[in-house]
Every structure is written in structure tokens, then in C-alpha cells.
């Protein structure tokens, strides 16, 4: 279990370092997703499988897709095609792909080794988290919904086309 943690940590640090040094936005995003997947693996070794799943679905899935959308919207016209050609060069996505492969191997190792049992850290089950969320943290959930509403209203107002 130890080795998984340290390897995932190394991947996370390396790919995060790559995120902040890339010149191309899409490369940075690929490294960012790799980094988030590595952090998800760290969560598994810390006995937090539920949060690991959320990290993959919401962070690496939803939030990063938002970034990808914006990249798409910003690169319109002819130069976008030219850029796309450069983005698809194998040399540029080989790095993130190799790192993701390392993570995959690690994930397989964790599952084959029996998952959370191998770690001495107690696993906090999704059930406990749900009970906490809808027990003492009920008001927190309500406030989080208002937070999302504020984000929604803001993005709607700022993002609307200037039609007038």
C-alpha cells in the first residue's frame, strides 16, 4: 500500500509541475487530469474511496470539461485547425498518457491486493459520509446549493451573448 501512495504522490507532483509549465492549454489540461487521477489514488490509500470517486467524476470529469469547453470556444477560426494539428502530435500527449498508464497499473495493484484492507488507515464508508451530510451538516448542504446558485446566476449573466 505504501508503494502505491508514494508512486501516486510522485505522479501527482510531476504532472502538476507539468501543468504549470506547459505553454499549450490542452497539454496542461491533460496533465491536470492525470494529476487529479493520481490524487484520487492517494485518496484510496488514505481510506477515502468515496471522495476518490468524486474526485474523478466531478473534478477530473465535470470541472475539467468546463475548461475544455472554454478552450474550444476561444479557438475559433482558421488558426484553430492549425493549432489542432500541432496538438495532435504524438510527442506532446505521450507524457500524460504514460503517467496515466502508471496510475492505471497502480490502481489495478490496489484492487488486486484487496483494496482498503491493506492499509492500516480505517476506511470511511460512503454511508458514514451521507449520514454526516444529512445530519449535522444539513445546513451546509443547503448553503452549498446556494453557492452553486450564485455561481449559476453569475455565469449566466456574465456569459450571456451581448445581443443588444
Amino acid at each position: 500500500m505504501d508503494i502505491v501512495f508514494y508512486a501516486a504522490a510522485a505522479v501527482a507532483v510531476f504532472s502538476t509541475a507539468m501543468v504549470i509549465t506547459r505553454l499549450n492549454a490542452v497539454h496542461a489540461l491533460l496533465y491536470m487530469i492525470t494529476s487529479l487521477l493520481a490524487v484520487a489514488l492517494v485518496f484510496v490509500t488514505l481510506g477515502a474511496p468515496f471522495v476518490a470517486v468524486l474526485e474523478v467524476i466531478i473534478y477530473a470529469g465535470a470541472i475539467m470539461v468546463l475548461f475544455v469547453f472554454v478552450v474550444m470556444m476561444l479557438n475559433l477560426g482558421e488558426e484553430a485547425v492549425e493549432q489542432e494539428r500541432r496538438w495532435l502530435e504524438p510527442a506532446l500527449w505521450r507524457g500524460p498518457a504514460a503517467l496515466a498508464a502508471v496510475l492505471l497499473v497502480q490502481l489495478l495493484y490496489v484492487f488486486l491486493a484487496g483494496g482498503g484492507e491493506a492499509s492500516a488507515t480505517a476506511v470511511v464508508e460512503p454511508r458514514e459520509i451521507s449520514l454526516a451530510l444529512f445530519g449535522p451538516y444539513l445546513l451546509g448542504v443547503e448553503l452549498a446549493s446556494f453557492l452553486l446558485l450564485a455561481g449559476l446566476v453569475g455565469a449566466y449573466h456574465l456569459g450571456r451573448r451581448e445581443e443588444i
Partner: protein
Amino acid sequence: MASVPIEHALILAGVLFILGLTGVIVRRNIFFILLSIEIMLNAAGLAFVAAGARWGAADGQVMFIFILTMAAAEVSVGLALVLRLVGRFRTLDVDAASQLRG
């Protein structure tokens, strides 16, 4: 088999946090700055999960879920502003937009 010391997980969170901070400081492209803020928030979430693992309680993970919510709300507004910025200045360079000087 020994478990991972919580300190090590916190060190990882710290390293990621610092990397994100470096990104916020070094980059001029607004897109990368927003990504770097995401890295910092994610590192803070990791620190909470690690701290929660130390106490074997769900609180750290609950906090992570709220951080996730906040990151989503912040990114949606941030990216909407980026679209406005590009529509207005045709650039992602934050320093290019500097009409506010005293």
C-alpha cells in the same frame, strides 16, 4: 504492512499547494492562473481528507465535498469572465487588461 503516515500525505498536499501557488504567481495567461487556483484548492481538499484520515472521521471528507462545490461555482464564474475578457481584449494575458491604475 505499515500504513502511510498522515504527515506524508500532508507533505504531498503542501507540495501541490506550493506548485499551484507558483503557477498563480508565474503565469500571465488567465487560463493557467485559473488552473493553478484549482490545483491549490484541490491540495487544500487533499489536506482535509488526510487530516480526516488521521481522526478516522467523516468530517474531512465532508469538507472536501464542500470544497468541490465551491471550486465548481468559482470556476464557472471565472471562465465566464475569461470569455468576456477575450471578447473584449482578444487576449488571455491578464497584464494586457490594466486600465485600473492609480
